[in-house]
């Protein structure tokens, strides 16, 4: 087990290397530099540009910039600055004096980390995952138990819509219904401290995952229901409730549980459009803003964090599987 875990963790290293190489190459293949402004705005003059380049080490050859990003390099004052291997994602080119990790992980003063950008995105992800589980699993169980009835068809219809329609389109529909027409919620709330303002973004973000959970639960339930041990349980006279809860649901949730890790990663990394729509102070909106400002180091850093989150989630699947299902052995 330990050996397997270690091997899967080591697999993260090439993933990070590949992702950072691709982003780095693309960033530098792009025409224009980080100091370019819109043509309409006042341009940064050449002397300042040269100073900025020296300050950020952008005057060095490309391979040195890359190793500086990954491992580290001495700066102009001769002090060694550690790179990615120490968790340093480098300075932001647009937000003066802040590093990427500070922008993403540093909370406003005297608050805990859950008030940082990452914390906000994480919380939104967790809330929408909760919504997905609390609605998706019962819906899946119910539609399997009542297969080919009206309940099943209605649930399947909603599930198909939830799986196919992308979440930002869903967001447009729900915002038009609940905010523009019924005036039940504010789209961009003044503060995110109240619970009620989290409901709409969390529901929209979690809708697709809810649908996938429901579909997987239903399929898994239908398979479990046909197993011999269910017939055995019934024939030895167990109450129907016990058969359903202890035998069916418990056994059919294994694939569902393994899905949750990647689902959370998907929710945290896939929220940038929803965050932008609602003016949410999270990592996704910072990412979209960085795209607009062409803040290369910020785009690169956030992409790396997203990639690591997704990779970690995939590793977690294998491990949860082993804990839940003793039949599965890792080679």
């Amino acid at each position: 087990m330990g050996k397997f875990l270690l091997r899967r963790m080591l697999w993260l290293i090439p993933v990070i290397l590949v992702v950072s190489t691709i982003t780095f190459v693309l960033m530098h293949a792009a025409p224009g530099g980080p100091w370019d402004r819109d043509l309409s705005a006042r341009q940064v003059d050449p002397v300042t540009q040269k100073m900025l380049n020296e300050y950020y080490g952008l005057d060095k050859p490309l391979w040195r910039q890359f190793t500086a990003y990954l491992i580290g390099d001495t700066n102009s004052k001769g002090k060694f600055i550690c790179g990615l291997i120490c968790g340093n994602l480098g300075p932001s080119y647009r937000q003066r004096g802040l590093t990427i990790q500070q922008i993403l992980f540093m909370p406003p003063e005297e608050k805990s980390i859950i008030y940082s950008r990452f914390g906000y995105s994480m919380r939104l992800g967790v809330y929408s995952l909760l919504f997905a589980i609390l609605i998706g699993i019962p819906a899946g169980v119910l539609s399997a138990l009542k297969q080919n009835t009206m309940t099943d068809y209605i649930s399947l219809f909603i599930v198909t819509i939830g799986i196919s329609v992308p979440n930002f389109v869903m967001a447009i529909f729900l915002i038009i219904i609940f905010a523009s027409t019924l005036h039940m919620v504010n789209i961009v709330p003044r503060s995110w401290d109240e619970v009620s303002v989290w409901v709409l973004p969390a529901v929209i973000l979690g809708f697709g995952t809810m649908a996938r959970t429901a579909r997987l639960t239903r399929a898994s339930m239908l398979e479990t229901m046909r197993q011999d041990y269910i017939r055995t349980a019934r024939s030895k006279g167990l109450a129907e409730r016990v058969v359903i809860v202890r035998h069916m649901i418990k056994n059919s949730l294994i694939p569902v549980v393994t899905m949750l890790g990647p689902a959370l990663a998907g929710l945290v990394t896939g929220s940038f459009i929803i965050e932008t729509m609602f003016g949410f102070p999270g990592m996704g909106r910072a990412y979209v803003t960085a795209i607009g400002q062409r803040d290369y180091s910020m785009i690169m850093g956030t992409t790396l964090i997203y990639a690591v989150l997704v990779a970690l989630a995939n590793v977690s699947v294998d491990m949860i599987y082993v804990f839940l299902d003793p039949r599965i052995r890792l080679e």
Partner: protein
Amino acid sequence: MTTQVSHPSTGQTQAHIANLTMMTVKPRSLWQDAWSRLIKNKASVIGMVVIVIFTLLAIFASVIAPHNPLQINSGKGFTPPMWIPVGPNGVPADPNFIFGTDTLGRDVLSRTLYGARVSMTVGFLPTFIIIFVGTIVGLFAGYRGGRIDNLLMRITDVVYAFPDLLFFIIVMVTLRQTPIGQMMNGLFLLFSALAVVNWVGFARIVRGQVLSLKEKEFVEAARCIGATDSRIMFRHLLPNSLGPVIILTAMSIPGMIITEAVLGYLGLGLIPSTNPKDFFITSWGASMLEGQTAINAQPWLLLLPAIAVSLVVLAFTFLGDGLRDALDPRLQGTQ
């Protein structure tokens, strides 16, 4: 297979014999069989109809659209759609603009019709390239094995490690200002990025099919009668592995359409054109981005493009599900 030998209601021997001869004369191939299963599935028939309608709308957008999508009607900005008599800023509804107008007074319906061009092209054009490249690579990797196979699997690992959408975003952000990024109003770059990521899935699925098929007796038989490698690959293995490829095609098209809409919505998809001679004027994603700021007061700007995206994506999903059930009946109802 169902064989109807007799009709109990008629019970006539003649009809019986006619039936039997019919059956011996017309054996049904795998594809006919799949087709008859597919058209029995109501959801996929509706899906196909919707896809055909949207394809026609896209091709004939310039004929169907009631207005020029670029025509700015001053004083008609934010005209509400027909079902809202007077808009929030006091502009009354106008029967000329059934679905209302945007900030510049451009017709929402016409712009949405033109948007179909982008989405349908994104759905179909890159797909052909992806299938072609993916199938050939998968065929060779599965059949020859060895180094090419190893290389394919390593590439697959890398592609799966990189979150798709992030890759598209980065490519579009960085290369948008280059000449490649400007070709076809930015669509060429988008197609290339989609192709770079998506061919891998096809290569893998064909490889998997070939790996199991090449051990089958009919391949051995073909080899015994002296068929060449290329004949075995293209005449025997390829047709037999097409089923999963068709299913994957229908399943991956909605993903590509959504990707284009998301990128358009982030301002990274199609570069909206102001030249009336261009084939691609605006996309649904770009329309939704333009309407985004007005979502509270003038939601009709987003409504039509949002409905259009949902319809097309649902149509492809239904068709994909139907194809899966038709081509691989063992999978029926498992998903």
